[in-house]
């Protein structure tokens, strides 16, 4: 996965993401594609969650999956989640759950609850940072004011790190793939460097929905695992998503 929150020179926040899934879950030799990734693409849907006939939040989802990986609470915040690998992983959380220790939350149920119930960027950030989880994760959160964009690096129990946009320091965007931002990504899977190169090449003055899509369309940020790209503009309350393909030659991940 790759998630980016960027602030343009007028202070607008743009949140974009590629949802990559299906690694090592069956390779289709003939079509040079991952089987599960290809089966997920027709299941991609945009959802408008409504209460009292009013939109509460919107999301890009896989039909049948009730949790949230990508969503916007219009004019309030945007949220995506990327997988984080750790030895202290979800299987430990599941074992605890089976053994009756159920004070943690399933990751995508937390994101769904935050999108449904949180009423501000700060409230969303606090809940995502402090709620116990069954599995580690990265939460990438965008708000509706300048500077409101962050990556929350979570272990199952702790909020390990919070990296926020700081335009004065020249950090006009935050970008997360699947590795802790203070460490080098796995050399076999460095999507961060090409993504940041393209963001820096685009520069703050040119960042927009269009150019964010360009960055998310550049290989290997776009790869064989990429099922969809979503672009969200919090101030307009807008979410749009597109099902992707990666023509050969293309990285399997």
């Amino acid at each position, binding site marked *: 996965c790759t998630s980016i929150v960027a602030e343009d020179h007028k202070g607008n926040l743009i949140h974009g993401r590629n949802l990559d899934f299906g690694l090592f879950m069956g390779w289709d030799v003939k079509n040079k594609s991952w089987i599960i990734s290809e089966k997920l693409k027709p299941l991609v849907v945009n959802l408008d969650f409504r209460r009292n006939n009013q939109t509460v939040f919107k999301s890009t989802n896989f039909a049948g999956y009730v949790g949230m990986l990508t969503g916007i609470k219009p004019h309030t915040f945007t949220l995506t989640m990327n997988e984080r690998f750790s030895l202290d992983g979800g299987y430990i959380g599941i074992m605890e759950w089976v053994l009756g220790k159920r004070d943690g939350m399933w990751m995508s149920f937390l994101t769904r609850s935050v999108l449904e119930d949180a009423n501000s960027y700060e409230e969303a950030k606090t809940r995502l940072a402090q709620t116990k989880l069954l599995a580690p994760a990265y939460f990438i959160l965008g708000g509706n004011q300048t500077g409101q964009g962050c990556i929350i690096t979570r272990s199952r129990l702790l909020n390990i790190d919070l990296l926020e946009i700081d335009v004065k320091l020249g950090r006009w965007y935050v970008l997360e793939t699947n590795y802790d931002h203070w460490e080098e990504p796995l050399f076999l899977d460095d999507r961060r460097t090409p993504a940041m190169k393209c963001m820096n090449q685009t520069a703050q003055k040119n960042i927009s929905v269009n150019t964010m899509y360009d960055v998310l369309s550049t290989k290997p940020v776009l790869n064989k695992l990429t099922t969809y790209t979503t672009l969200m503009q919090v101030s307009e309350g807008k979410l749009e998503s597109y099902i992707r393909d990666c023509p050969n*030659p293309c990285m399997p991940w």
Partner: protein
Amino acid sequence: QFIPPYTEDCRTDTYPPNGPTFRGAVGWYTVDLDSPPSKRWDAVITEKKTHLVNMIQAIRDLANAFVPSGKLIELVDVTLPIMADTLPSPFSEEIKGIAAVSGIPLGEVVLFNIFYEVFTV
């Protein structure tokens, strides 16, 4: 660049989406949070049922590739329905509603919904 990781120059002018990296647009559906949790996903699942069944079948095929005896699927179908009852509301009821409308065994719908945690295995 024709060797892995096939890094290319930063793309430009790919929006509006077009060309070989754009497979298609995504449809919109409404989920009414005022309706009972078990009914909220009926419209989505009714329309996407075939694709959902195909995706679950692909996971089944993968599981059987690892455990040809079918015991792994059996384990999922026997134990995960029990886990469904431990999941918090409204997720438990929503997942059961999806299983009912799609006809997919409840355990396999639960597996799909907790896949993030399971995948770390």
